[in-house]
């Protein structure tokens, strides 16, 4: 201990340490509280929730709310549960993440290793596209999807997410490839290797870490998207977030809070799982979002 504290640049007394731990633990409770409330109450029968203590553990544990949220609960007008919408989200998120990541890798490779006049300006244009409020594109996008005949379909949503995901995926790969020695690429060019060969043999093998970051980032963003889903999905391609909102706001009958919580956790589960499995990379991805090179 004493060795460790000598290493610390800033020294703190032991009373101060107690306060520090106290504050840190209090904040941990603040962040955990909503998750705890959702989880415990999703495992209670409805009668225990209404008028009951939200902090208490269930007296009669039940997974009925989970089963209902998954397959029988009223979502909007139909009693389908969240299952079809969960599947919709999967069908949307997998191709959208794959395509935007591959394009981002290629773009990043070009913008760092095949530089040309005006490439920084181009990158700036792509980067600004990451930060626009999407309200500015909603009206024309609705028109274009209609003209292309993919309004209200999963393909339409994939297109939308790819288009507005390219900026970030390009940003990640560009910043990552920028620190990769250009001399290696030059040497390969002199040896006669072409554009794709260099990408395949030299760039891709070192791209593992940034690919993970990009995939996590895109997966989280696209899975959690609500605005595009609510605007363009229609009924048949509705993603999980929109369905959850409909489930919670279904006005018919009694409000089944336990079902709402089970549904909310279901909607959160894929991103939470990704975060638990690869959280370190998630943090790195969030940091890269701050445009640092």
């Amino acid at each position, binding site marked *: 201990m004493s060795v460790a504290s000598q290493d610390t640049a800033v020294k703190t007394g032991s009373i101060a340490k107690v306060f520090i731990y106290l504050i840190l633990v209090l904040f941990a409770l603040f962040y955990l509280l909503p998750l705890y409330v959702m989880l415990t109450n999703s495992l209670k029968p409805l009668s225990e929730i209404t008028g009951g203590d939200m902090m208490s553990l269930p007296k009669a544990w039940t997974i009925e709310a989970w089963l209902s949220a998954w397959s029988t609960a009223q979502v909007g007008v139909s009693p389908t549960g969240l299952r079809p919408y969960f599947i919709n989200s999967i069908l949307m998120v997998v191709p959208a993440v794959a395509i935007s990541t591959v394009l981002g890798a290629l773009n990043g490779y070009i913008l760092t290793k095949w530089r040309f006049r005006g490439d920084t300006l181009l990158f700036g*244009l792509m980067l600004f596209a990451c930060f626009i*409020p999407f309200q500015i594109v*909603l009206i024309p996008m609705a028109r274009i999807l209609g003209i292309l005949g993919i309004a209200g379909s999963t393909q339409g949503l994939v297109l939308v997410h790819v288009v507005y995901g390219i900026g970030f995926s390009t940003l990640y790969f560009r910043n990552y490839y920028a620190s990769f020695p250009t001399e290696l690429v030059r040497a390969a060019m002199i040896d006669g290797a072409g554009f794709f060969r260099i990408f395949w043999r030299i760039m891709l093998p070192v791209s593992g870490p940034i690919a993970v970051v990009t995939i996590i980032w895109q997966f989280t963003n696209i899975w959690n998207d609500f605005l595009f889903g609510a605007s363009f999905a229609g009924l048949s391609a509705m993603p999980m977030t929109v369905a959850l909102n409909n489930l919670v706001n279904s006005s018919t009958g009694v409000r089944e809070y336990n079902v709402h919580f089970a549904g909310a956790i279901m909607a959160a589960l894929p991103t939470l799982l990704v975060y638990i499995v690869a959280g370190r990379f998630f*943090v790195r991805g969030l940091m890269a979002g701050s*445009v640092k090179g």
Partner: protein
Amino acid sequence: MPIRTTRADLRTRLQDFIPKIVLAPSLAAILIFVYGFIVFTGYLSMTDSKMLPSFDFVGLDNYVRLFSLPAWNTALINLVIFAALYIAICTVIGLGLAILLDQKIRGEGVLRPIYLYPMALSFIVTGTAWKWFLDPGLGLENTMHLWGWTDFQFNWIKDRHMAIYTLVIAAVWQTSGFVMAMFLAGLRGIDNEILKAAQIDGASNFALYRRIVIPLLRPAFLSAFVILFHMAIKSYDLVIALTGGGPGRATELPATFMYSYTFTRNSMGIGAASAVIMLMTVAAIMIPYLYSELGAKKE
């Protein structure tokens, strides 16, 4: 011989073109779906579009009408309150937690993911959880009553003057851990020698942080500000899930205003004008920021 050189020329020329061909689809997508659409929406904002786009030019009429609408002014005031508190509180909590976590804390590996996980959730999930938690009849207030504190009152979410602050609570819950991570990375990047030298000179911990560490975190402050600012303006999902813009219109933000005027109130021209204002607000911050970031890198 001459034939061979032209062939080699052709090949290198082709090689020069391939990157541009590969880049072209992404570039075209961005130019059309981002910049083309911005121009289109900008044009619609100067037409009398109602339910469907119309191309009858009316100049700046929509902007004049927009700023005379009480609903828009409410949304703007709400945005100012929300953004200011959201950015300020996230920054204070984020910086505070980062500094505390940086004191060689045992269990940092457990605490950090707990602070950060809300960032992985959808705002719809966050809104669903907090809506219930803040509901006086079900959540915190009811629980306090059951625990014997019968005078306890916390009904902000039902109060039109206080509801906007519930948005701040939920949004801070979601994002402050992420801001903590940004500051923590900044702190870890500071050279320990500087700190040690200052300590030898007899600086107190407080002075050390105020005079040396916090000024050194300038880039982290800037990044956090830019990210939080653009998230505040884009806030839409959280409002829908937490308050639905209510009670009444008390928590309407520009993003929800734009959506309802465009798609449910059949005033597309007004909706487009509000979207343009939102874009210009983001651009006013983002363009100088990106310019300085990219410009600096060139050197």
